[in-house]
């Protein structure tokens, strides 16, 4: 099994090293403008949030997969995990605020032993929308997960799943040998109980991300291709396809540097900067929480160890919506990944 960067003691598992790379080199020398320089003339610096609508909780970095592009550096060897007490704090926040969506991510969130408890409690307190970012293969990883589709349905969970391509080889090269076949099997299970099927309100969305150092194509066109191919070859249906740009963080950053694609990729992101996408970046309406209860502007900042500004209160124990909505968002050059082309977020394009 491939190890995480952390388990390899790779220098890129250190967030300070990553942040240095993102600030030095082409950006430090001024060959490319920093993200700040790019948004200043748009009067977007400091970047400010709008209303917080999504509470994205990362319940742990453990995963049954070790995808090559993973910005979390997740894998079976990662032990960081959210406790029930921290989940309870999240639930208290959801209960006492108008935040609409609880978005659960990881790692494979289902591997947290308190995952089901968390989802059920969220339902009990009437959270409007519960999203689970499932990698699909987890459903087949162990008999104890086989009933996850039923569990999702029972708890009215919206399932968002990664499937980088509608054919095996590109998918397996990025996510691991045999992942495509298992993903198809899991999608079949979800379809069978109504997920992604016309006439049900059980939503199943797929996430496409490029299998290398290039940008995602047009979301609507790729969705059409995915629908046609998955239906035609495997009889699979789903609701929407979200295209997500790979951000230069963690394992994807390691790939970019190792294959000497880093500079060209950053040039491409900068050249594709779309001012209209700045309005829709997800840090404007999302708060990301880590397994320890610390808050970040987004899941990417979480992986770079960039907590929300101190004055906003950094731990969910000190959660204060007013302060958070007044904060300045912490940015660096990885943010270019959110503003390239049609933009990118956990809900796909933004412009």
């Amino acid at each position: 099994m491939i190890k995480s960067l952390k388990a390899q003691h790779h220098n890129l598992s250190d967030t300070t090293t990553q942040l240095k790379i993102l600030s030095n080199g082409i950006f430090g020398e001024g060959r490319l403008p920093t993200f700040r320089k790019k948004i200043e003339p748009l009067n977007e610096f400091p970047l400010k949030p709008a209303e917080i609508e999504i509470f994205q909780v990362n319940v742990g970095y453990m995963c049954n997969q070790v995808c090559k592009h993973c910005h979390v550096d997740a894998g079976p060897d990662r032990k960081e995990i959210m406790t029930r007490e921290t989940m309870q704090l999240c639930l208290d926040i959801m209960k006492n605020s108008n935040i609409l969506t609880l978005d659960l991510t990881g790692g494979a969130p289902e591997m947290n032993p308190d995952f089901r408890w968390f989802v059920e409690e969220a339902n009990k307190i009437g959270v409007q929308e519960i999203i689970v970012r499932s990698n699909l293969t987890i459903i087949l990883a162990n008999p104890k997960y086989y009933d996850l589709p039923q569990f999702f349905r029972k708890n009215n969970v919206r399932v968002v799943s990664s499937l980088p391509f509608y054919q095996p080889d590109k998918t397996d090269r990025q996510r691991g040998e045999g992942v495509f076949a298992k993903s198809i099997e899991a999608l079949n299970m979800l379809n069978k109980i109504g997920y992604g099927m016309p006439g049900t309100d059980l939503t199943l969305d797929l996430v496409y991300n490029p299998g290398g150092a290039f940008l995602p194509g047009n979301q609507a066109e790729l969705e059409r291709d995915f629908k046609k191919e998955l239906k035609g070859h495997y009889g699979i249906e789903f609701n929407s396809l979200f295209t997500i740009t790979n951000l230069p963080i963690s394992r994807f950053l390691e790939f970019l540097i190792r294959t000497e694609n880093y500079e060209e990729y950053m040039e491409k992101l900068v050249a594709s900067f779309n001012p209209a996408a700045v309005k829709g970046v997800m840090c404007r309406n999302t708060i990301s929480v880590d397994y320890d209860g610390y808050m970040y502007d987004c899941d990417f900042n979480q992986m770079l160890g960039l907590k929300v500004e101190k004055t906003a209160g950094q731990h969910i124990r000190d959660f204060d919506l007013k302060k958070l909505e007044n904060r300045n968002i912490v940015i660096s050059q990885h943010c270019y990944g959110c503003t390239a082309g049609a933009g990118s977020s956990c809900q796909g394009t933004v412009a």
Partner: protein
Amino acid sequence: MQKTYYDPADLKKFGDVAEFQPELAKKFFDYYGDVFKEGALTAREKSLIALAVSHAIQCPYCIDAYTSDSLEKGATEQQMMEAVHVTTAIRGGASLVHGVQMMNKVKKLSM
């Protein structure tokens, strides 16, 4: 003057051709943009055609650009290689079909 005819960095400077003749460059780039928009052909089909033509004219800039573009448009590696074989078949065929001309001439000249 640079030491090689081709420099990958020049591809990014393509837009700079406007420096010497802005009006025509604008017309060209507007037209170029429209050509590659989805129409009766999908954007991916157009990208694969561009990839095939790039190989026919053996333009390294175009091969670079349309390899990335085809991947972005969701083309598979197999589709991309098949596009190059289309180029090859047409180029090879274009030579070979002239063999008929050669044969005609041989037959005319020979007793």
